[in-house]
């Protein structure tokens, strides 16, 4: 299957850039060539909303686990950089440790909870399984988000937002915010490297000193951020930008980048399917009590094994 189709923006640089594998974005990398690019950015946005919000209607951990697998499979299909997922591993583990530690040490008081006596401690089945379900809900949402940012450039995101009729000024502010976040991280790295170059070894520092150091970073970072804000403001002024979006001659503002993308039949079909699934999941959960924790096969099995009514 050809990865590049006419729905993808065509520019003079496309051929040259395709000799490389990844595009750098302010928040990571995206593949230069991907089957995802056959779809309009707005379709990809709908997929993101679907994968990111549908877990809120689903409290069956198995289904959320399946959604994680779906996201991973889509990443693989979309030629996303799966090696990049390693950076999320500490977060995934830390969140699990945090959630389960809290629920084991402070399960709450409820006479209906079923105690399970382990060798040294007693845990309660219901809050632990509830946490297990919540954890997989969180993972499903996270993997949907990672999929989106691994297969969409900032420009795609802005085109998608404008395609759903978000006012230009709002999409522009979002774009600048994404940019600011990237530059904030860049500045932070520069300050850290400058300190290391002058012999600061943070690993040898006590935790309390490290915390103080991080607080001290805020001063230069915010002063740089303020200066950049002024520079961007000047740049916008110099290029005739007005908050109202008014353009010279009073006509309608043209959106050149959006004009490079076209919504095709496949986009319409994909959007209809995604919206149907989304609405179906929402209605099933809200009105018919489907996808609740008691529907979980694992929950049913464990309750049977542990004789929990």
């Amino acid at each position, binding site marked *: 299957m050809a990865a590049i189709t006419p729905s993808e923006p065509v520019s003079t*640089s496309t051929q040259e850039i395709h000799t490389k594998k990844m595009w750098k974005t302010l928040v990571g990398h995206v593949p230069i060539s991907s089957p995802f690019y056959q779809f309009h950015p707005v379709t990809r946005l709908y997929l993101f909303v679907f994968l990111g919000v549908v877990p809120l209607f689903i409290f069956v951990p198995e289904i959320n686990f399946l959604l994680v697998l779906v996201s991973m499979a889509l990443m693989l299909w979309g030629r996303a950089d799966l090696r990049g997922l390693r950076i999320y591993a500490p977060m995934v583990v830390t969140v699990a440790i945090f959630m389960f530690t809290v629920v084991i040490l402070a399960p709450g008081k409820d006479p209906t909870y079923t105690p399970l006596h382990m060798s040294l401690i007693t845990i309660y089945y219901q809050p632990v399984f509830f946490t297990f379900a919540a954890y997989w809900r969180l993972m499903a949402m996270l993997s949907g988000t990672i999929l989106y940012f691994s297969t969409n450039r900032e420009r795609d995101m802005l085109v998608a937002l404008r395609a759903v009729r978000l006012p230009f000024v709002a999409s522009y502010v979002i774009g600048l915010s994404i940019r600011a976040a990237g530059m904030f991280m860049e500045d932070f790295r520069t300050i850290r490297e400058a300190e290391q170059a002058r012999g600061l070894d943070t690993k040898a520092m006590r935790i309390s000193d490290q915390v103080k150091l991080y607080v001290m970073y805020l001063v230069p970072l915010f002063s740089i951020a303020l200066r950049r804000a002024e520079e961007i403001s000047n740049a916008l002024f110099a290029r005739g930008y007005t908050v109202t979006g008014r353009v010279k001659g009073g006509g309608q503002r043209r959106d050149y980048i959006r004009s490079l993308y076209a919504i095709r039949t496949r986009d319409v079909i994909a959007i209809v399917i995604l919206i149907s699934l989304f609405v179906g999941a929402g209605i099933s959960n809200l009105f018919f009590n489907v996808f609740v924790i008691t529907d979980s096969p694992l929950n049913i099995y464990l309750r049977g094994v542990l004789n929990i009514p």
Partner: protein
Amino acid sequence: MSEVVVIQDLEWKYSNTKEFALRGVSLEIEENSFVGVVGANEQGKTTLISCINGLIPHSHHGVYRGSVQVFGKEVREQDALELATNVGMVFADPESQFTAMTVEEELAFGMENMGFDLSKIREQLDWVSDITMIGDLLDKSPYDISGGQKQRVAIASVLAMNPPIIIMDEPTSMIDPLGKQFIFNILRRLKEAREHTLIVVEHNIEQLASLSDQMLLIHEGKVARMAPPAEFFDDPAYLVERGIVAPEVTEFAYRLRELGQFSADIHLPLDLDNGIEITKSVLDRQHS
């Protein structure tokens, strides 16, 4: 030729400083001319060009006296859109002026503000990509290219809007020698086309002198000298006192003239070719 910029008795003081940054500046800039602006640091060069493109007084607070007219209309009375239509500005730090996610968007942004239709945007995009040689960068992030490329993108984004006046504030200050040469080549092409009034603040005196129709020296917030390059550099000692060093070839000829080796009526050379020519003619005369 008509004057596109007329400044009269301009004084400006930033609200957070005690001294006036500009003190009674008066000057006129002709249409489609190339004005090279020089001066030591903190003498008022950037402040002056900010007054022409309207950042002062629109985006800065302070005391403003006098008059700055662009195309016969007071800058104070023009809004951002009108000013951007008339005056384009390339900042010293190209990255500080980027607001988009790809080079292509960066170029299109100003044109969208100008109300260009899509076919015009496409046409301008092709033209600026060609003139600034950035055709292979359009799909890239403007933060992910080299310093020289960033500056070319910054120039292209202003050029694409096609303002009749283009101001550049030290466009080569943050780039390597090859990148500088690229920028000066672009400036040369623009000058030869004679379709824009170019006001360029630059420390590379030699390159600037060879391009400028008028050289402007700003010293302590005042116009210390404004003249065609040959006249401007005729007294290098005066310039040195104000923190400016003339091109080496000019200095060389000036010293020989002071020593009586060159006649007092020669025009000091501004570039190497001119210097060789003058020196050769003097030597030929002596031999004959």
